Every structure is written in C-alpha cells, then in structure tokens.
C-alpha cells in the first residue's frame, strides 16, 4: 500500500533537502562557470605553460570519480593541515569538478566562433581581451547552451554525492526519512519527483534561452522551413 499520510509527515524534511540541493547546485555551478571560463581562456592563450596546466587539471578531474575528489577534499586534506567544513568542501568539490567539464565545453564554444569575426574586431583596433569578452564570449555562450544544459543537469544529480560528507541534501534527507519510516517506496518516489522537477525546469530554462538567443542563421533557417511546413 502507498501511504500518502507518511509523505505529508516527512514533506518538510524532504523540502529542506530539495532546498539544500538547489543551493549546492547553484553554488557549484557558479564556481564551475568561473573556473570553466577562466580555464577555457587560459587553454587558448598563447602561453604554453597555461595550456598544459589546464590540460592537467581537466585530465585529473575527468579521470577520477567525483566521490573520490570529495573524499580527498574533506577527509584527506586535513592530514596536510587543510581543514574545511562540509559545506565548503561540498561547493568546492562540485565547482572544481563541474569546472573541468565546463572548461572543455567553453573551449569548444570559443573555437567555434569564426576567426573572421575576431579579425574584423582586431582590424578595428580592438584588443585581444576586448575581442574575447565582447565578440567571442557572447557568441560562444549561445553555442554552448545545449551542452551546458547537459552539464547542469549532471551537476544536480552529482549533488547527491555530497550526502557522503554528511550534508543533508535531498538524497540524504530521503535516506534519513527511510531509515526511520522503513517506507522506501513513498519517500524515494517523492525524492525522484523532486529531482525531476529541478532538472525539467533547468532544461526548459535553457531551451527558452536558446530560443531567445536564437537570432542566428540556424533559427532563421528553421523559421523559413516552418513557413513551408517542413
């Protein structure tokens, strides 16, 4: 039997977990975006050392599990005298992890901006940085929206791993409730609905952004094709 009363009883706890998951997602994403853009810019710079440094960072993060990275931050670093609270380790771990994937996404985005647009900017006297920020970044941002959505959704789900460093986010709140009620069906189905809610909102937000930004050739072509019913 499915016990709805039980869900109502534990809803406040689960909603608190949902809120924590949203907070850690936002924190991790904000940090990840900053790291990702910086790493992408550095990897495209003319300084070879920077290029290799970013390469090493991306390879290390992508080559090891997030769970391990969280454990290193929270359990291993204190042995070296670097102690941090669980929330700090959580946001840092998520941000550093997302940053590596976002760096690759942004690098691809920057490389997809036609060189001719850059040359036009430089021919007008704009500097490397002015061109990067005013001409390349906005175009790259539009190009990377679809892979960015993937990464954000993946990040939301990754936050479940910070439950292992004792942060009561959505997954952990669910586990605690189940350990008390012995009602995994009711509790975990609500947890699943909550994750879906976050991710569907995110996906739709990005889709909306894409359409709003879609003044490029592709959406123009799509409009034309819609006109003729294709």
């Amino acid at each position, binding site marked *: 039997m499915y016990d709805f009363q039980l869900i109502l009883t534990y809803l406040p706890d689960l909603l608190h977990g949902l809120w924590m998951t949203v907070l850690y997602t936002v924190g991790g994403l904000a940090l990840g975006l900053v790291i990702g853009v910086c790493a992408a810019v550095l990897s495209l710079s003319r300084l070879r050392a920077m290029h290799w440094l970013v390469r090493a960072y991306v390879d290390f993060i992508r080559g090891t599990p997030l769970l391990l990275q969280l454990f290193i931050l929270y359990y291993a670093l204190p042995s070296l005298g670097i102690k941090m609270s669980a929330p700090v380790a959580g946001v840092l771990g998520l941000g550093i992890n997302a940053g590596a994937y976002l760096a690759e996404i942004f690098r691809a985005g920057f490389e997809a901006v036609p060189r*001719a647009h850059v040359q036009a*900017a430089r*021919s*007008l*006297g704009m500097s490397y940085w002015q061109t990067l920020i005013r001409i390349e970044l906005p175009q790259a941002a539009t190009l990377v929206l679809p892979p960015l959505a993937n990464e954000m959704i993946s990040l939301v789900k990754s936050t479940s791993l910070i439950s292992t460093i004792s942060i009561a986010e959505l997954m952990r709140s669910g586990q605690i409730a189940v350990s008390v009620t012995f009602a995994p069906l009711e509790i975990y189905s609500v947890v699943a609905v909550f994750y879906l809610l976050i991710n569907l909102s995110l996906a739709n937000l990005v889709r909306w952004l894409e359409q709003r930004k879609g*003044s490029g050739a592709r959406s123009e072509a799509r409009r034309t094709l819609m006109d003729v019913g294709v």
Partner: protein
Amino acid sequence: MSQDTAAARPMVSVRQLTKRYGEHTILKGINLDVAASEVVTLIGPSGSGKSTVLRCLNFLEAPSSGEVLVDGERLGYVEGPGGKLLRRAEADVNRQRAEIGMVFQQFNLWPHKTVLENIIEAPMLVRGTKRDEAIAIARKLLDRVGLLAKQDAMPMTLSGGQQQRVAIARSLAMQPKVLLLDEVTSALDPETVRDVLDVIKGLAVDGMTMVLVTHEMSFAREVADRVVFMDEGIVMEVAPPEQFFSAPRHERAQAFLSKVL
C-alpha cells in the same frame, strides 16, 4: 594625382615587402606608394598575393621582411637603438590598426549584435566615444550607405549587399586614414553589387584613401587612380586605368585581361 600630392609624403608606403609561410613565398618584394586621397586597385590572378598585401597593410599579417608605413609611421615595429627592429606593444599595434579600416569579402559582421551595435562597438571601446555620440555618428553613416531604416536589424536578416554596406559603415565609424577593401563584392548577388560600388565611389569622391582588391574590372577602371597588376607575389605593372586596360605593357597582364574582360 596632382603634382602637389605626388610630392607630399605618401599615405601608405610599402617597401620591399615579403611574406613567407614556411617554404612558400607569397610576396616577393612589393613596393607601392599610395598618396592621400588616392584610390589604388590591386588586380591579378588568384594566388597572386593581392589579399596578403592588404592584410599586411593593417598588420593582420606581419611582414616576413620589408616595411609598411602608414602616414609615415611604421606598422607593427619601431626602430630601436642601433637600428634594431622592435615589435610594438599590443596597445600600440591596436592604435595603428584603428586608423586603418578593413572591409572583408565575407562582411564579418558580428551576428549577436544589431546593425547599430556593430557600428558603435569599436568607437566606444577603442576610442572611448560616448554612446550617444557614437550612435549619432553611426546613424549618419547608415544614412549615407542607405540603411538607416535597418539600424535595429540583426545582420543575418540583411542581404549580402546590405551587410557589406554596414561593414563599410562600421569601418568608417573609426574615421580611418586609409580604407582597405578585400574583394568586397565577390560574395554578393549581382543585383546588390551596384549599391556597394556606389558607396565606394562616393567615398572616393570625398577623398578617402583606398586600396582595393577587386575582380570588377569595369569598376577598377571607373574608380581607380592607378591600377596595380600583381602576379606570383610581384608587382608586374602600375599604370593609370585607361592606359592599363587599353594597352597593358606586360604580357602576363595582357594574358590576364584577355581572360577576364
């Protein structure tokens, strides 16, 4: 060209310009002077190095050897103590580029900005022009190229000819000393070419110094003060258009003209 301007310092001066990519030599010692208010067209078979010359003229390409002077100032380099060549600082190169307009075959408008934003971007960022002032200048230029009504349009919604006229306006907004035009009508539909050529002709009448690479022989004849014929990285012939098109001296030029005319 009158006697006075010929005696004055040339606006553009190219001395023994060479450009190599690895083993391949594109430019083999180009010499060329362009006087203020003069219009020079570079013509020649594809691969002759015309576009490379233009790209060296605003330092989108660095010369392998030789020098380019614009308004008496050497592009990209300064002579240090003992005659040693030193690369200019990036800010200095940017300042030089800002004074040399370049219009590209593929327009290269920025697709994420409106027509007006494309034009005011560089004056505001590079010259620090106030937004209101930049917009006023941009609107004047758009009016001049006949596209004031399109100021809020996105570039992708314009025809090729319209985009190219916006690109010209974008270059003019920096009030360049020289305007370089690289096959600006080659990517256009035939019916939109004329509008672009009319804009360029208007600039010539107003005294804009221009160097243009073109395949439009009739236009070269119409607008140019001098025609420079290039082949295989060498300037083969320099002559006034009426002389060049009616009686080219060099046999390569004769062969080229017999193919394109």
